[in-house]
């Protein structure tokens, strides 16, 4: 298992896998699969994948502590993919829905709470994407960098609320995302206040 995570191919494979949702959209586009309302379909699909990638990014930390520290190698890439799909989602909205009418966009952001909070979730990801390089970690210092990057918690919660405020009645989907975010954040709290047993810590430390 460890070997798989360490292999130089893992990153490449995960990278390609992360592009599959986009590929699937492209396939749908060429095969009349975008429904009768393509703009809505693209908006919803890219939005869904933004949230999913946020959750996948957030699941890395618990998994690497429980399962394999090597998983950390994938975290930045997954986070950047969350940002990538977030950009597509935002671009669909501002381009295909609003046709770059910035006045309309600001009115939306001001007037419609689900847009306000969605915009917040997206903009919070921008500094995180910019400062995701090793150079920036050095520049900011590990501790400050870490504090900055906790903004992903707010972004994920805001993303779930954005979804919840959008649906007409089928709240089960946004609530599912919400429950997962809740578990992932609670795990972090628990991890902080009730550190794992000494044996486990030692076991973790003894690993290469």
């Amino acid at each position, binding site marked *: 298992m460890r070997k798989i995570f360490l292999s130089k191919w893992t990153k490449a494979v995960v990278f390609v896998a992360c592009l599959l949702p*986009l590929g699937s*959209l*492209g396939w*749908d*586009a*060429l*095969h*009349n699969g*975008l*429904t*009768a*309302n*393509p*703009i*809505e379909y*693209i908006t919803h699909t*890219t939005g869904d994948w933004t949230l999913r990638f946020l959750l996948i990014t957030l699941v890395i930390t618990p998994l690497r502590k429980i399962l394999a520290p090597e998983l950390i190698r994938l975290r930045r890439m997954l986070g950047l993919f969350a940002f990538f799909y977030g950009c*597509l989602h935002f*671009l*669909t909205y501002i*381009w*295909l829905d609003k*046709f770059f009418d910035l006045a309309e966009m600001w009115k939306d952001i001001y007037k*419609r*709470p*689900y847009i306000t909070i969605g915009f917040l979730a997206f903009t919070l990801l921008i500094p995180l994407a910019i400062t995701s390089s090793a150079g920036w970690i050095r520049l900011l210092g590990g501790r400050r960098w870490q504090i900055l990057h906790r903004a992903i918690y707010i972004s994920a919660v805001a993303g779930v609320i954005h979804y919840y*405020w*959008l649906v*007409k*009645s*089928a*709240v*089960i989907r946004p609530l599912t995302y919400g429950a997962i975010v809740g578990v992932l954040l609670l795990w972090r709290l628990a991890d902080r206040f009730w550190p794992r047993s000494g044996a486990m810590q030692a076991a973790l430390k003894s690993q290469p």
Partner: protein
Amino acid sequence: MLFRRNPQLTHADVTPKHLYVNRRKFLKDTGLAGAALLVGGGLWELAAPPKAHAGTKLNGVLKSPFSTTEKQNTYDDVTHYNNYYEFGVDKTEPARNSHTLKTDPWSVSLEGEVKKPRQITIDEILKLAPLEERIYRHRCVEAWSIVVPWIGYSFSALAKLVEPTPQAKYVAFQSVYDPKQMPEARYAGIEFPYVEGLRLDEAMNPLTLFCVGMYGENLPNQDGAPVRMVIPWKYGFKSAKSLVKIRFQKEQPATTWNRMAANEYGFYANVNPTVDHPRWSQAKERRLGEFFKRNTLMFNGYADQVASLYTGMDLKKFY
């Protein structure tokens, strides 16, 4: 000679009218669509050939002066982009899931404040009055719209059959609900059976259509087979599908979406570009198949026929 006398052009060389009339739109749409592809968007202009209709042809259908001359949406659009929550909340789910609905035999119970309550079978419904094709604009509360050639007759013809008493002030429409035929319904987050309603004078307006078909055929399941309401000046959710009960009554019926969220879905739900849904604007709509949004019309463009029903009413209050 410079001019060739006989260029041998035949009728077949003439550019078909629909192509030259729409050439600018075609260039614009394909240009934009090409750009959209860059972000994974769609070449939806290159639509696949229309699928064969599955329904039974309805004969002797008359034209109606209420029909719009606007371009109709394709049968494919109207049958693969539906809100029918009993069969799933995604637009594409009803087309996949609604085949489980048994529409034969079918009858509708006509009851309440009427002199002659009765059951009416779908065969009797089809013969009660001459069928008309009504090409109506249909505007969803979610800010998309379609143009559909419905088939049916004015609801008033059905009302005359049962003779509402003077006590009847409202009409409640109830859709079929059978969890066995509708396993997706439990995830919908709304209560079933689906109930909608109209004031009696709204129901008796000639535009209010008791609808049994579309595109020359009987209704497909996902569009509300075998019989539904179509109220073109109101948001789509007012037009209940797959009717099993129609009740004339004194009190305003408690309608499904209104009970779910009264601040978002009023009893009247008239299409009104000046009254926003609390979470989104109603000023514009996306006509399916079009790239740009278009302005939404007051009463969905049917103000001449229906505005008088609401004289003196504050439509911001009675949304």
